[in-house]
């Protein structure tokens, strides 16, 4: 009897009402994965794509060859940025719920994916973030007031009211403009890195996308071009298990890790504990060194979990267990770093409490300042004619006419 082929429809291990089940995530012991030299041949280091690079063990001790040489000051800085990111997210989420901004996206649970790698690059290196990498902007000293003003589309908005909340950019600090179209920044980062090599400077580029976005054609474009030209770029996939309601199996994560795509294109792929700040830093540092010394691109998969909703327009209780995050085997990146700093004797719970209070106060002070530049409902408002600027370097005649028409309709200039 012949057997008809049947389609495999990927299913997550747990739906609402089910107990969380992360048995599908392959774990390695902290310190168990070898750290090869940065000039190792791809074919010799394919194990990095299937193992899980971890530094912090269950007792918060740094273990093994990937344990980075980070001084306590840097670790404390990383902690502060992560705590600040979470405090900022928490406040902005509540502000959105109050109707003062139209939309928001938190990074809850994946703060280390921005902050650890961010620390591994140099100031002149160009970052091409995704929309959940606000930690990178904060790490690179984008003022909270500026970020809030962007979300408010007010008179100090860096985007002059043209972008939804959270689509920041920071030219001065080399953090690119966020796009809502997924994965487009991946080949752009590769092109930027190719440009650096063409110009003969030693800057490199890094970019972030999510697990779901690896299904886009631009993922293939980026990896092909990066590998073909040996571009000095670090390509990051934040595997937070969920693309809105679509679990990572629908991007093809069930049968092979996302990191495994790397060796297929001829570049190292490294799967790393995305909630282990030390591991995220160490792996990024390795990839940055490899790129800067002419070794070419690396694909890194950060295994983490999206602790919150996709965005304020999403309700994850409709498609995944409510308490799934609590059961995630790699824990909470902030708690794990606190544990490590405590273990080093550099931090205490009371210090943590005062840090959290301080960061909340910082966010509150920033908000008070931000709203003096206006909100969506309260003046001052942006001049509406700004809508017609920057379409081209110089505003062409037809746009000037359209601007004047709008202004005339409104009874003169806004």
């Amino acid at each position, binding site marked *: 009897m012949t057997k008809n082929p049947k389609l495999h429809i990927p299913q997550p291990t747990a739906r609402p009402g089910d107990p969380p089940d992360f048995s599908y995530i392959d774990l390695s012991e902290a310190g168990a994965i070898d750290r090869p030299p940065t000039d190792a041949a791809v074919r010799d280091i394919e194990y990095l794509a299937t193992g899980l690079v971890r530094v912090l063990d269950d007792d918060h001790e740094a273990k093994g060859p990937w344990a980075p040489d980070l001084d306590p000051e840097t670790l404390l800085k990383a902690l502060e940025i992560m705590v600040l990111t979470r405090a900022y997210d928490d406040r902005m989420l509540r502000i959105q719920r109050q109707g003062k901004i139209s939309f928001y996206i938190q990074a809850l649970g994946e703060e280390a994916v921005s902050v650890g790698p961010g620390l591994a690059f140099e100031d002149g290196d160009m970052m091409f973030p995704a929309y959940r990498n606000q930690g990178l902007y904060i790490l690179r000293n984008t003022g909270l007031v500026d970020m809030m003003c962007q979300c408010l589309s007010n008179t100090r908005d*860096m985007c002059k009211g*043209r972008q939804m909340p959270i689509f920041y*950019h920071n030219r001065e600090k080399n953090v690119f403009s966020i*796009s809502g179209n997924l994965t487009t920044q991946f080949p752009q980062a590769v*092109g*930027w890195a190719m*440009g650096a090599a063409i110009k003969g400077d030693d800057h490199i580029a890094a970019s972030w996308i999510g697990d779901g976005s690896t299904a886009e054609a631009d993922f293939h474009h980026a990896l092909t*071009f990066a590998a073909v030209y040996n571009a000095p770029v670090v390509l990051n996939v934040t595997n937070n298990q969920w693309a809105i309601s679509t679990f990572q199996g629908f991007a093809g994560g069930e049968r092979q890790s996302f990191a495994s795509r790397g060796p297929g294109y001829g570049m190292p792929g490294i799967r790393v504990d995305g909630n282990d700040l030390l591991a995220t830093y160490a792996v990024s540092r390795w990839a940055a060194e490899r790129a800067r010394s002419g070794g070419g691109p690396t694909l890194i998969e950060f295994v983490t979990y999206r602790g919150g909703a996709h965005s304020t327009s999403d309700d994850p209780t409709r498609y995944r267990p409510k308490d799934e995050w609590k059961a995630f085997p790699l824990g909470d990146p902030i708690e794990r770093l606190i544990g490590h700093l405590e273990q080093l004797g550099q931090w205490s719970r009371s210090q943590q409490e005062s840090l959290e209070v301080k960061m909340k106060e910082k966010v509150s002070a920033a908000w008070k300042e931000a709203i003096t530049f206006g909100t969506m409902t309260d003046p001052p408002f942006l001049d509406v004619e700004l809508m017609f600027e920057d379409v*081209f*370097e110089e505003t062409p005649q037809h746009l000037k006419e359209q601007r004047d028409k709008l202004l005339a309709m409104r009874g003169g200039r806004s």
Partner: protein
Amino acid sequence: MIQAIRSAHDVMMERDATVVALGQDIGYFGGVFRCTEGLQKKYGEHRVIDAPIAEGGIIGTAIGMGVNGLRPVAEIQFADYIYPGFDQIVSELSRLRYRSCGDFFAPVTIRTPCGGGIRGGQTHSQSPEGIFTHISGVKTVMVSNPYDAKGLLIAAIESNDPVVFFEPKRIYNGPFDGDPDKPSVSWASHPKGEVPEGYYTVPLGKAEIIEKGTDLTIVTYGTIVHVAQAAAKKAGVDAEIIDVRTLMPLDVETLRDSVNKTGRCLVAHEATRFCGYGAELVASVQKECFWHLEAPISRVTGWDTPYPHAFEWQYFPVQQRLVDGIRKVMEAG
């Protein structure tokens, strides 16, 4: 025209170390239409870059290079193949300046051969310019002769705005008057076939009056410029023929002044008609010149079908169709 395009690259790569070219087959081989021949040898593999067959990758990486201070000239081998890069053009290249308020921009020029008349069937003959003029934030050019091709390409490369630059492949080697039965002619005897060696520009955003006349205005661009010239002669009318050259932004002033003078207007292009670029031309002329018009504005275009291989000359707006169009406009009103 091929030499003119090559020369534009050469002049700009010589003058400006940030100018790079990338595309399929453009380096070692010099391009399937030879537009970049010899450039890799002269400027090296880092500035004239052979690319994988991935239009989205070519345009995506060109944007990254542009953000990093280079001026990339990306060749898409046929306009018919530009669509895998469409998202990068529409969502990224065209809006980067806008969304970052000028903090980031990518001065990318995308060159691509377009149009039919070479037995290319439906996958090597398309004229998709109207899709690009509909995007806010890219300039769109279609050239009709070697002199303009060089000058406009240099202007495009120097522009800080992205430019999609269409090169009708039927006229790469000589003007084509719309009569497929006549033997091919070269650019040698055409007044615009002579191309100065060094640097010069033809400004973006300026149409050109190719022939002055009083009976009617023919607004066109690309290959059809030459067809219109022959058709006007055949129809025995004193036509004013305008080569739009830059489709976006459109030089409305030149169109307005001409049609206000002649009172009659025919719009012609090779691309399909429905929602085609000609619709915008008609609307613009109607808005500017309505009270001067002595007849309804008419259009001659490709039919609203894919470009058929076997019926190329039934599809293409050949001389006779232009002649009919001219007569219709002249006889009306």
